[in-house]
Structures are given as structure tokens and as C-alpha cells.
């Protein structure tokens, strides 16, 4: 064997070894883990966190630690900052937002109310929401341009309220299905997911249905959706414990992540969303944490 042949053979072996190692790491490419928000630094691990709110102005993450009846805040780098429990009066908070006037809005499942918390004046106001005399069960909540959008479990619709909680619009779920399971307000539209038909509905912000997107790949339990910066649709499958990615027409592209407790794996995801910096945040009820992934 010549010297050159020998060296070539060894180089091939080295390259193969390295590429095997890289391919193992690259299984969830193009996404990679950036950081994890855990409750341990507060003295207590999170227990069944349900949702996440990202405050663009203060560049903070707020995690709704539902079973522990509290809200946790973290810096953009994932450093734990504060615990808030409204003097231990919160009961199963499900969603929150911090509006531009510094008011904290919290959906409390334990009392089935929407609470308006004026932190400055230390004032709390409770609202029992109704729609045509029907008591609503608020679930998920988002804000856009001063309008509060709430998903209601009683009717399965999404409702838009102003800050005085006057009803502005109703985003109706199609009659053939039971109700929306999640929604997001992005790119000037409201996107809502129906689990049983695995369909995404796009409404304009006046409540008019504009597009019905049938997702081409069958999922087990689509539970939450996020719309990416380029219009790709991300669906968290709560039972399969992975994220399905579809293009804007509903064509399946790829799947990433899988079940587990280690870093970079998920267990019972309850919500996914993109933060203002393009990172995908996954709230994991089963693992009691929020994991943030980037490209």
C-alpha cells in the first residue's frame, strides 16, 4: 500500500466518524436548543405551566405556572427574575398579558374569571365574561393593537374585547366542529386551530373567515399552533410530543423534537409560540419548564 493510499484511508475513517457524530446531533436540525426556563431558581419547580407571555418592551418572558398559582418572570437570557402571585390570591392562572398601560390581565380558571391587575395602584378587578348571557370559560389569551383576544371553552369561539371588555368581534368556529383549541394573532390575522379536523382557520381581525388550511399530514393530538416569521405553521402535537411544520398552504414539511425529559426533548407541550426574536418557545406541562429553540 502506498503512503498516499494509507493516508487517504485514514482520512476517510476520520471523516466518517465525525460525520456520524454530527448527524446524531443534527437530528433536530435546523432547530437547536438555546435555553430552558425552569422554576428551580424561585425555590420551587414549575408544576404544569400552561402558557407563556413575552413582553417585547421589557424583553421578558412570563411563564404562567398554573398548578403553583403564580407567574414567573425571566430575562431574555433565561435568568429568573420574580414570582408574582397577587398575594396568593391567584387560582389556576391559565394565561396572562401585560398591556401597554402597565396593566396585568390574567385568566384564572379556578374562579373562571378574567382579572385586571393594576400593579401601580395595587388594584384588582374581576370580570365574569359573558356572551349573549352565556357564561364564557376563557382559556387562551393574546393582545394585539390594544384588543384582547380570548379563546372560550364554552362555545369554542375566539372573542375580541376592548380594554373595557366590550365585545368587538366573534371569530366563530365552524358548526361541524366542537371548537378551537388554540389561536394566535400574527401578521395582521387571527389563526385558529381545530383539533378534530386538523385544520387552521385564518380570519381577518374583523372576524371574517379568509382562509381554511387543511393540514396535510395526520397528527395524533394537535394542541397548539404558532405562525413562524415566514408564514410557516408550527403545530405542537401533545401526544406524539413533537412539532409538525407545514407551509402556508398546509403542506407538510418536517417534524422535529421527540418525547423525553432531557434537554431538547418535550413532554406534554401545552403551548408553542415565537418570541419577538424569532425563537420558538415551547411550554411543557409534563416537564414543568419552557424550552426555547433557535435556528
Amino acid at each position, binding site marked *: 500500500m502506498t*503512503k498516499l493510499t*494509507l*493516508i487517504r484511508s*485514514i482520512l476517510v*475513517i*476520520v471523516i466518517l*466518524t465525525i460525520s456520524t457524530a454530527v448527524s446524531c446531533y443534527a437530528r433536530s436540525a435546523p432547530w437547536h436548543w438555546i435555553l430552558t426556563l425552569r422554576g428551580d431558581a424561585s425555590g420551587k419547580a414549575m408544576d404544569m405551566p400552561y402558557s407563556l407571555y413575552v413582553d417585547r418592551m421589557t424583553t421578558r418572558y412570563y411563564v404562567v405556572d398554573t398548578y403553583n398559582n403564580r407567574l414567573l418572570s425571566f430575562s431574555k437570557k433565561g435568568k429568573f427574575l420574580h414570582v408574582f402571585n397577587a398575594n396568593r390570591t391567584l387560582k389556576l392562572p391559565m394565561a396572562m398579558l401585560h398591556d401597554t398601560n402597565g396593566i396585568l390581565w390574567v385568566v384564572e380558571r379556578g374562579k373562571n374569571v378574567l382579572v385586571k391587575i393594576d400593579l401601580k395602584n395595587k388594584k384588582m378587578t374581576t370580570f365574569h365574561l359573558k356572551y349573549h348571557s352565556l357564561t364564557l370559560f376563557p382559556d387562551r389569551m393574546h393582545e394585539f393593537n390594544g384588543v384582547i383576544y380570548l379563546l372560550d371553552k364554552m362555545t369554542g369561539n375566539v372573542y375580541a374585547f376592548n380594554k373595557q371588555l366590550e365585545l368587538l368581534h366573534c371569530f366563530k368556529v365552524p358548526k361541524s366542529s366542537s371548537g378551537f383549541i388554540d389561536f394566535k394573532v400574527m401578521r395582521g390575522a387571527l389563526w385558529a386551530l381545530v383539533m378534530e379536523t386538523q385544520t387552521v382557520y385564518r380570519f381577518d381581525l374583523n372576524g371574517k373567515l379568509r382562509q381554511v388550511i387543511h393540514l396535510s399530514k395526520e397528527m395524533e393530538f394537535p394542541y397548539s399552533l404558532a405562525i413562524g416569521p415566514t408564514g410557516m405553521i408550527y403545530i405542537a402535537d401533545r401526544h406524539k410530543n413533537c412539532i409538525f411544520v407545514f407551509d402556508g398552504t398546509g403542506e407538510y414539511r418536517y417534524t422535529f423534537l421527540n418525547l423525553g425529559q432531557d434537554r431538547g426533548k418535550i413532554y406534554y407541550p401545552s403551548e408553542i409560540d415565537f418570541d419577538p426574536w424569532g425563537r420558538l418557545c415551547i411550554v411543557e406541562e409534563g416537564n414543568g419548564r419552557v424550552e426555547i429553540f433557535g435556528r
Partner: protein
Amino acid sequence: MRTKVYAISILFIVIFVSIPIYSYGKVTGQCSNCHTMHNSQNGIAVSKTGPNEELLKDTCIGCHTGTNTGTNKTPYVLSISPPDYGVTGTTGNTLAGGNFYWVASSGGADDRCGHNIQGISPPDATLGLTPPGGTPLSTELTCAGTNGCHGDRSIQDQYKAIYGAHHAHVDTGWQDGSTVAKSYRFLLGVEGMEDPTWEYHPDQYNHNKYYGVDRTTEADVSGTISHLCAECHGYFHHGTGQIAPDIPHGVWLRHPTDFDMNDVKNGTEYQYYNGGTGLDNPYSVISPVATSDTSTTLNTVVYHQAGDAIVMCLSCHRAHGSPYHAILRWDYKAWPGSNGYNGCAVCHTAKN
């Protein structure tokens, strides 16, 4: 040629980097070989004696019961059927500590032939809970713990006393006694080097390396195997006027332990230890000696340097059990009859 050498070196580096590095000496194998999560399998309890701590399937002696073959990964210190001891315990299937068979109620049931350990035999019918040369124990002797030998003897519970040692142990190199896992045979504080087969068929080149200290007074010393024995059998090891008033000369009230024969070998019978001449005598596995040398070089010869011929308790006794009274390593009682053996003569060469 040089290129070839470089190339092959690179190849070997790649191969060895790819191989995960294992620590040798830790217990290996599947977790379920030793542990059970619920002590229940198919509706039947896994451990007949009830659930064990640390989710273990069995007690200490339960796991360490069997017949040694030289290839077993677990040392067996109790056998159900009579083990093969041979004449001096170096050619059969017993290990360095001997075998509890001869004292066990399931075996020989002779109190004089071993330590009476809880779960192996009832307390000594004659001595009760009082070890010879010592003060009474609060309970019967256990494998580990406050009333035992192995593990951390400041901890009452024997499982807690030995917690983590099996997984953390590395059986190569000098055990410095700093932790239970780093102690000789999990005897906290005792230093030494361990034979990888626990002295199954030991010889001059394959045996334990015991640590000893060449004392010049009767005061106790730490870290030696004899000191460990003395924690219960103290009168035989230390104490003012207990051992020898005028060390190393004068009258010995008790047989020396933790004393170096190098100090007295010249012109005496000890010079001819194990048939040698007084310099680099071959190490004897029949009547072994300790050394104060803490290097990882095995002491295959004695009288090579000062401190390498230290008499210790294990020079004459076994730690667990033997077929002979006083847990001696050989049958001194039957000597000079044909069935007896004079292991004393390994050192006391003029008295055979």
C-alpha cells in the same frame, strides 16, 4: 516509514477516542441484577427476607453467597456447600477473607471458626456479644456499620454505611482510605492494594498488598488492617503494658502486630522468613505480612527495604472464617499430627 508511523498513530487515536472510557472496578452489568424497584415480580416478593434498603434484591450476604471459581465478578464469602479450603486456604476456592461456611448455622456452625455475623449465625454461645480482647457490642456483629467492619463505622445502618461504594469503587491502584469507596475492601480508613480476584489461588506475584506501620511504641496507629481488627480486639494490638514493655526487645506479652521483622531479623530465625536468606525473601501467601510502602508496586519480596515485613493480624488469622479454631489460617491445633500444619514456621523458622 515516518509517514506510515504518523498515519497509524492517527488511526489509533481516532479509534480510541471513539471508544467510551469505562472505569474499571465499579460494579458492572444491568441495574436489575442487583436492584428491584418494588420488591415484587409477578406478584411474588423478590427478596425472601423482606424489602431491602437501597432497593437491593438481597442482603449483603445474600449477594455474596456462592462458590468461587476464579472468574466470578462478585466475591463469595459464604458458600452453601463445604468450600474447598485446602491446607492453608491458598489452593482451594476460598478467598482472602476465608469463608463463613464453618461458622454459619447453615454450615459448620462452629463459633470458633469465624466471626458471628447477623444473618449468618447466632451470637457466639460462649462470648455473647463481647469480642475477645475488647468491649461488648450493642448488637450482634453486622457486615457493615457501627457494629460491623465494612463501610463507615460511624453510621449505624449498614446499608447507609456502605452507600455508593459499590458504584464508585476502582479496584486498581492504592486505596488511600479517604472514603469508603477508596478504602481497602470498603473498610473505611484502611489502606492497601486489592488483588483483582480477591486472592483466589494467590501466589507470590498475585496477592493483596496490606498496609502496616512499623511501630516503636504500644500506641495505636491508624490506616492499617491490624488497627481495624483492634477496634474490637484492642487488647491484642495496643495499650500501655499490654503488648511489650520494651519494644522491640524484651518480653512480648502478646504476639506483635504492626511491628516490622526487619528490626529483628539479623541473626534471628526471622531472617529465614519463608525459606529466604534475609534479603528479598519470597512473599508468603500462607503467612503474609504488611508493608508501609504505599506505592502501587506489589510486594513480591520481603526484607527488600525497611517496613516491608510488618506482622499483622492477618498473618495468622482470616477475617471471615476458616475451618480452624480462632479462625487461624492453618490447622495449628492438629500440628504436629499429620493433619496439622505449622504456618507459624513461615516466620518462626527455628520452631518447626
